[in-house]
Structures are given as C-alpha cells and as structure tokens.
C-alpha cells in the first residue's frame, strides 16, 4: 500500500494518540472512573458542537440576502432553483435540524462555491494536509520548546537563561505571518534550500510547520522552565540528589514528571494556536489544507463549507482539551479527573 506523506503522518499521530490513551486507561483503571470522565467530557464536546453550530447557523440566516443575490444577470427561476437546492427557502428550524443531522453524519451539504463538490469532499481532502502540517508543527514545538525550558531552568543565572527567555518572549510576541515571511525569504528565496510554496513532499512542510511551531515552542519553553523552577527546590528532588543519583537521573526521573504538568495541560491551547496559525500560513504558502478552504469559504460566503470547517475545528479543539486533561492526570496523580 502506498501512503502519501500527509496520510502517513496522520496515521502515525492517530496511532500515537491511541497508544497514549490506552496507557492512560491502564494506569487509571483502579483508581479513577475513566469512563465516567470520558463520557462527561465527550457529552460536553457534543453540546459545544451543537451550540457553535446553532450560533453559526443563526448568524448565516440572520444576514439579509442570499449568496446568490450578487449576480444581477441570474434568471429569477434559476435563482429560485438554486435557493431550493441549498434549502434556503425552508423554515429555519427545519433547515437547522437537517443541517445538524448532516453534521453528525459528516455530511455538510453541497459547497456553494465549488458547485461540483460537497463540502465534506473538500474538507476531507484538506484535512490530511492540515493534520500533517499541524502534527509536524507540534513535533517541532516539543523538540524545540521542552529542551530549551529544561536548559533555561537548570542553567539559571548563566548567560543561556536570559537568552532563552528573550527568544521565547520574541517568539510569543511576533505574529506568525511575519515569521513565515522572513523564513520564506531567507531559506526559500535567498538560500534556495527549501521550496517556497505548495505542498506534496516533506520538504514543502518544513518552513510552514516551523513558522507555526514557534509561538507554541516559546510557550512550552516558558512553562517547562517555570515548572522546573518550582519543582527543583522541593524535598523529594533534594533527597534524590542527596542519595547520590546522577544529575541527569534526578532531573529526568524525579523532577521532570512533576514539572511537566502545566506544559502537558497546554496541549489543548497549543492545538488551538496551531490551528489558528494554519489559517494564515496555509493561505500564504498556497497549501491546500482546511485553513485555506475555510478562509476562501468565508470570503465567498460559502455557508456549508465554512460551517463544516467551524464544526470540525471546534470538535478538534475540544478533543485536544480532553486529551490534555487526561495526559495531565496521568502525569500528576494529584489531579482528579
């Protein structure tokens, strides 16, 4: 079986999530009602999705004039047919219910801008691309952010700590699109190491993923640093050191698990940050992901596509929050689920 690059990354991430979840389950089986927690949180996700869908739908319907009013040459009969095809002539409660039903069948209706495709087809084609990009960005963020935080905390008072802190302040403050432009012009146009735009191979993903990862990496570095600074002076760490364990073992086994809590809980907001960033980065680098489709749908008033994208994004962010809480509880037994 041949897997394209985006699909293989998606598969890898899904399996990692499944493994992490199952290990969390085995650890918590005897102590806490994991199923009750999952049921509660998934119900909350469900409600969130319904509320967001309702708000977005109400907004769509509240706007006077339909998406087909812009073409003055359109035959009134044609327009009436189009309005009927997209269900815009039905009473709003009926069309809301049918739209909501469609959401749970992953059927977002026909796209209004790409008349040959359904919104589900378009979003389905964009999803693996965005997922691969987002996963790579998250990977970069962890690989850059966590070690930087550890170094900054353990080398406190040396020159490297203020350097890391300043860089992370800059990384948090400077908008993604500026970082991406600088990266594209230096590594793409200037040094010609990497392609400037488009998508297809792993080389295309590096620059956008790196630009996406920077704010998350900066936030992670800070959280890990603060967590370690709280954890390192604690008694159990001092005891471990007094027993004569190697500094690396003290750090890795005794200090880090307690210190990583806030960083792990940040996975949810990190996912939101990366998804948000992907809107502008995908549009800039002409990557055919969900973000590009969402932006163009919002511009073209393509209701079904925009609505579908908002629902998917909401679901993703909610699920990442659930996952973050689970992982946090796995790391820190004091956290009640």
């Amino acid at each position: 079986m041949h897997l394209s690059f985006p699909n293989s990354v998606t598969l890898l991430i899904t399996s990692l999530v499944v493994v992490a979840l199952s290990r969390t389950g085995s650890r918590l089986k005897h102590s806490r009602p994991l199923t009750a927690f999952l049921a509660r949180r998934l119900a909350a996700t469900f409600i969130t999705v319904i509320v967001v869908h309702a708000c977005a739908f109400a907004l769509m319907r509240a706007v006077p004039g339909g998406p087909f009013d812009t073409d003055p040459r359109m035959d009134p009969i044609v327009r009436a047919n189009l309005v009927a095809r997209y269900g815009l002539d039905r009473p709003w409660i009926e069309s809301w219910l049918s739209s909501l039903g469609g959401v749970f069948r992953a059927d977002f209706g026909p796209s209004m801008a790409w008349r040959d495709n359904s919104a589900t087809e378009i979003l389905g084609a964009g999803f693996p691309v965005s997922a691969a990009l987002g996963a790579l960005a998250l990977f970069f963020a962890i690989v850059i952010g966590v070690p930087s935080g550890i170094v900054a905390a353990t080398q406190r008072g040396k020159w490297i700590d203020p350097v890391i802190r300043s860089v992370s302040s800059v990384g948090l403050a400077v908008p993604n699109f500026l970082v991406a432009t600088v990266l594209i012009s230096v590594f793409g146009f200037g040094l010609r190491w990497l392609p400037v735009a488009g998508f297809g191979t792993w080389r295309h993903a590096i620059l956008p993923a790196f630009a996406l990862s920077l704010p998350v990496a900066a936030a992670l570095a800070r959280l890990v640093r603060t967590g370690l600074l709280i954890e390192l002076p604690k008694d159990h760490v001092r005891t471990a050191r007094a027993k004569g364990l190697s500094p690396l073992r003290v750090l890795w086994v005794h200090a880090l698990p307690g210190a990583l809590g806030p960083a792990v809980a940040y996975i949810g907001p990190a996912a939101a940050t990366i998804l948000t960033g992907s809107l502008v980065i995908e549009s800039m680098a002409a990557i055919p992901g969900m973000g590009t489709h969402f932006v163009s749908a919002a511009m073209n008033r393509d209701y079904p596509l925009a609505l579908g994208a908002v629902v998917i994004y909401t679901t993703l962010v909610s699920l990442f929050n659930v996952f973050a809480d689970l992982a946090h509880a796995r790391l820190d037994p004091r956290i009640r689920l």
Partner: protein
Amino acid sequence: MSAPMSPWAILRRDRTARACGIVLTAIALLAILADALPFSDPGFVSTSRRYQAPSFSSVWEPAPRAASDVVGVWSVASRAIRLAVFGDYQIGPILGTDELGRCILSRTVFGSRLSLLAALAAACVTLLVGTAVGTWAGWKGGRIETTIMRCVDLADSVPVVFVVIFAVSFLRASGITNPSAKVAVFFLTLGAVTWITMARLVRAHARSLREQGFIESSVALGLTERRLVWKHLLPNLVPTMLVGMSLTIPRILLFESFLSFLGMGVESPDLSLGTLARSGFGAFNPIEPRAWLLAVPGISLAALLLALNLLGDSIRDAFDPRLPR
C-alpha cells in the same frame, strides 16, 4: 526583615517594565499626535515616487497641499499646531514608498492608530463585560456562578478566531456600508470574544475574597451589598483586572493584525498595521523584494507586541509573587 515591597514599587523598579512603558508611551503619543506632527498625508498619491526604497535624499521637504478634507475639532486644532510649529514642511519618504508613491513612514504611524484604537475599544468591552460577569459570578456564588461558569467553559472550548472570522465575514456581507460602522462592528466582535479570560480571572479572585475576614466583617457591620461590592470588593480586584488587561490587549492587537492580514479586518481606505503588512506581503517577490513595504509595518507591529507582552510579564510577576522569576 524588611516589609515586602508593594507590587507597584516592584513594577517601578523593574527595568524591563520601565523600558516597555517608555516605548509604549512613545508609540501612543505618536499615534495620538500624528496630525500635529509633520508626517505627509498617508493617502497622498505621487506617481513619480512609486516604490522608492528608503533613502535620506529628501528628509525635509515642502508639503504639497492636503488632499483630504480636514474634519473635526481635534484634526483642525492639530493642523493649526502643525502649521505653527513646522510650517509648510513635511518629513520626506525616508522609509520608502508604496505602489502609489505614498509614504510608508506616515502610513505606518496612521495605521498604528487604528490598531491601537481596536485594542482600546475591545479592551473596554473586556473590562466592562468581563469584570461585571466575573464579579457577579464570584460574589453571588451558587447556581448563578455555576451557570455562568459553564457558559464560560463552553465559550472557552471554541476556537475563537474561527468564530470571529465567521462572524466578521457574515457581518460584512450584511450590507453595512458605512466604513466607521464596519470598523465598530469589527472592534465589538473582537471584544465579544476576549472578555472570557477576564471573567474567569476576576471570578476566581472575587470568590477567594468573599471568604476573607474583611468582607465577612463588612457583612457583619451591615453594609449594603452595593456599597460592599463597590467599596470593598472591586478595589481589591484591580490587580486582577490589570493582569487580565495585560493578557487581553496584546491578544486583540494580534487578532486585529491577523484578520486584517487575511483581508477580513480593517478595509481600505482605512489603515492598520495588519493591512499594511498584507499589502507589503502582496508586493513581495524574489526579483524585486521591496522588503521595506513589509519590514516597516512588520517591525513596528512586532515591537509594539513585544513591549506589551514584556510589560504584561512584569505586571504578572509583580502581582503574583508566588511564581519564581
């Protein structure tokens, strides 16, 4: 052992906070006084000067006649001051010009105006709504608190940017043609999504205050609820509000520039740092990079955000001494 310093004293001693305060004051003054300073008209088209690179060939030059009408007391007064102080002269295009020969320096200064106004407007909404909801929930407790906090939780698990883009795109389509109404709608949408952080922070603090002795004794003294909340609860919540604002304002600025960069925020002929960055990116190409078009508004935006973030960090450090620095 000496008495612990007050947070304000810590903040005044913090060198980063002072530097950021100076930078932010300078930017704010530049934006407020833009009309009174000798910048060229940001909308003045000069086809003979298209895409001029930054240069000091014409630093101080005679000003052409103002193209746009001067309206409003503030603008008229500013023009009068400008004429009196600087005469009929203006700063030349030292930071380059755009595709219509408009001065990038003056466009950036006038663009930062709208960006800052967006932050101010949305911050006001956040302050009013967030504090009101948070105080109410934290003070009343019980079922009201639970309901409000459930709503806040729900709103928190929604990716706000998507909802804002959705809302803005449909509000734009709704036939509002008055440009200032459009901008106002945009600002209010921004504020409507950022109050949640504030509500959450204020609620937590109000709740912990409610349990404390001075509130209990005020209740025992028979103070009216209104007096209690206004005189005893709210003044003690000010640090939390400050922390909330320090989190919110940079976020709104980032939002504004982000949406304007995508082409969904401020629209031409209005200017903001985001729209300037957008047109700079649009003009960017490997053969003629014209980097100044993007670099000038981009660096200004980055500096503004960095100063705000660093000041916010200092405020949080000063008011929350439990965290190690």
